[in-house]
């Protein structure tokens, strides 16, 4: 069972994620934030902003810890307390935001009209995942430290295609569930609105403000010396 959940499921999740997101992309039409702000804006502010900021910071924390575990182990002493308290604040911000989002989704008629089963499902998955995370952070002391020393080797072993699940099998059930939840999250990305984070618009920063698209190379198209087969429309 452990092998299935900690050794196999992560791979299934990643493979499904990769194939699924590509399949879903096809023309790109199905990638959208599916924002419902147009239908309700005031409550969304209290919900969406803390949720997004919280989840982004926490996810970044997990990623940084995975890539550079030494950063975490080096904190030491009272720094750990501060670091974990700050992290906890973001964790709480995420879960509070999520709760507001769920309340908004279940109480507003207009939002209900644009709610799919998948929306509800992923909100509960996230709720459990966030709840476990906060429980782990508050009860299983100094997670930043054992994350670096126990979890990172496990995640690395997955990454190296040589899963070593001995450490994770010995962890408390909450941690184990949190790990399964993470795989589930990755698994669900192509089937839910999660996809929108994959198309976050960072390229906006470097692009000129105005965008002009030419269907033809306008100078070549009317140049009699270029054969027509060379000048093809650009949007294919």
């Amino acid at each position, binding site marked *: 069972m452990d092998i299935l959940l900690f050794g196999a499921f992560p791979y299934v999740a990643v493979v499904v994620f990769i194939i699924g997101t590509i399949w*879903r992309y*096809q*023309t*790109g*039409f*199905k*990638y*959208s*934030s*599916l*924002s*419902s*702000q*147009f*239908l*309700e*804006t005031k409550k*969304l*502010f209290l919900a*969406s*902003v803390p*949720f*997004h*900021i919280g989840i982004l910071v926490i996810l970044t924390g997990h990623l940084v810890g995975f890539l550079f575990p030494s950063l975490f182990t080096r904190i030491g002493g009272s720094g750990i307390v501060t670091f974990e308290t700050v992290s906890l604040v973001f964790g709480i911000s995420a879960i509070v935001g999520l709760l507001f989002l769920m309340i908004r989704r279940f109480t507003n*008629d*207009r939002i*209900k*009209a*644009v709610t*799919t089963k*998948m929306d509800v499902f992923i909100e509960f998955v996230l709720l459990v995942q966030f709840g476990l995370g906060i429980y782990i952070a508050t009860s299983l002391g100094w997670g930043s430290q054992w994350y670096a020393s126990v979890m990172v080797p496990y995640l690395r072993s997955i990454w190296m295609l040589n899963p070593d699940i001995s450490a994770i099998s010995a962890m408390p059930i909450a941690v184990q569930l949190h790990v399964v939840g993470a795989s589930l999250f990755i698994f669900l990305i192509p*089937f*839910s*609105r999660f*996809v*929108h984070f994959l*198309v976050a*618009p960072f*390229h*906006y*920063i470097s*692009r000129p*403000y*105005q*965008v*002009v*698209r*030419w*269907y*033809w*190379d*306008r*100078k*070549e*198209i*009317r140049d009699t010396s270029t054969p027509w087969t060379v000048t*093809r*429309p650009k*949007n*294919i």
Partner: protein
Amino acid sequence: MDIRSQMSMVFHLDKCIGCHTCTVACKNIWTDREGSEYMWWNNVETKPGTGYPTKWEDQDIYKGGWEQNGSGSISLKGAGKRKGLLNIFHNPNLPVIGDYYEPFAYKYLDLIESPEQDVQPVARPVSVITGKPIDIKMGPNWDDDLSGTPDFARKDPNLENLSAAEQEAMFQLEKMAFFYLPRICNHCLNPACVASCPSGAIYKRGEDGVVLIDQSVCRGWRMCVTACPYKKTYYNWSTGKSEKCVLCFPRIEVGEAPACMHSCVGRIRYLGVMLYDADKIESIASSDDDNLIQDQIDIYLDPHDPKVIEAARANGIADSTIAAAQNSPVYKFVKEWKIALPLHAEFRTLPNLFYVPPMLPVMAMVGEQKEDTPELHAVAKNWDDKWLYDTSLDGIFGTIDNMRLPLKYMANLFGAGNEALVADKLKKLMAIRIYRRHTTVGDISAQKSAAALKEVSLTEDEAEAIYKMTSLPKFNERFVIPAAHREQALEMLEATEEVKGNTGFGFTEKPVRGL
């Protein structure tokens, strides 16, 4: 010089009868789908009025368009790289459904399927979004013909700098005047919607300047809805994508007029090509308020100038497009006759839709009767109060400066606040009327007509040409769309050989919401 060609428009407001045929034609073709029920890519507003969405012109509320910075450059008022990305989780300046109206339908089936009962069944209104009964508070064109004036017309943002007395004069019963303002996307030269899109989904087509949203790249960040000062991009709440007027590009590509223009009952709409210098866009969009309109009009080049023709050819513009530019009714209205102005140029998007300001409210001029007011012309009606309505020709010409809809109001709409600019256009229009009255009815002397034309520096030939283009234009004079490059039209969408044997071309995926 980087010459490009632009599809531009003129709407002659004196001719608009407010029939909304244009709106319905557009609706039937483009926005009759779930999620777009509330969208009116073409809409016709009664002015004075708050318009659609409510008070769209008030950028203190909606933060649309560009604003000039201290240094003389411009930036987006409510979007842009910094503001846009910071507000991506929640856009504080997004107009919401209530600013437009909640789309509704009636449960007509209830009338038919109702069991026998003592009372008549009624068809209750239900929201198209939730399917639940709603209390309709707002609908498309709710303030048509000044209905609900206290709530709508009196809150028109263009009344802002009018004195209380001036506003009062506009809204006295029996003296109220209004006109219609049909609006579509302006396919701007400096589009705020394009600049605000974080995904880069909105683009201006190089070939004809039509501004489009690539539905497969749009991610629903909804910044364009905020950024467009004319509120002509709309968020589809069902598909999670934004949509806007496409200027019926499949029609213009094959040389047909867009549906709104083709169907226009008043024949107020003109469509033609303008050649302009794309290198100047940024500097002109940053001009000072006072020069903005003139500078924009200067960006369009003379298509008869051999140098312009040469540069246009070198830039790959087809001869047929150049020929269309030479025949463009828009060029005539805007550049030759100079009687059309852009709407709200102060938003700095350099709109390509020009309006001939309406004359009609001027015709029945209102003034306060004083002791020494001279005798009215015989056809003028004298009401039993101290206000005068002078519909005689004698009184009109001099009265443009204190017309029935105050000039200041018109200037707020069409002159970026510059009254002289609008007065100049109105005087020209009036001079042409005087001239025509002289030639057709003959009760105005030749000298008087000549003097009127001279004052606005029009020749008789020009006056005749304007009259013809206004009153008697044929279909192909109103719409000069470059000789249809049928062989290229389809290829602008796709390479035809690659869709051989397929079921069609264009959008091949059903536009349904993602999971």
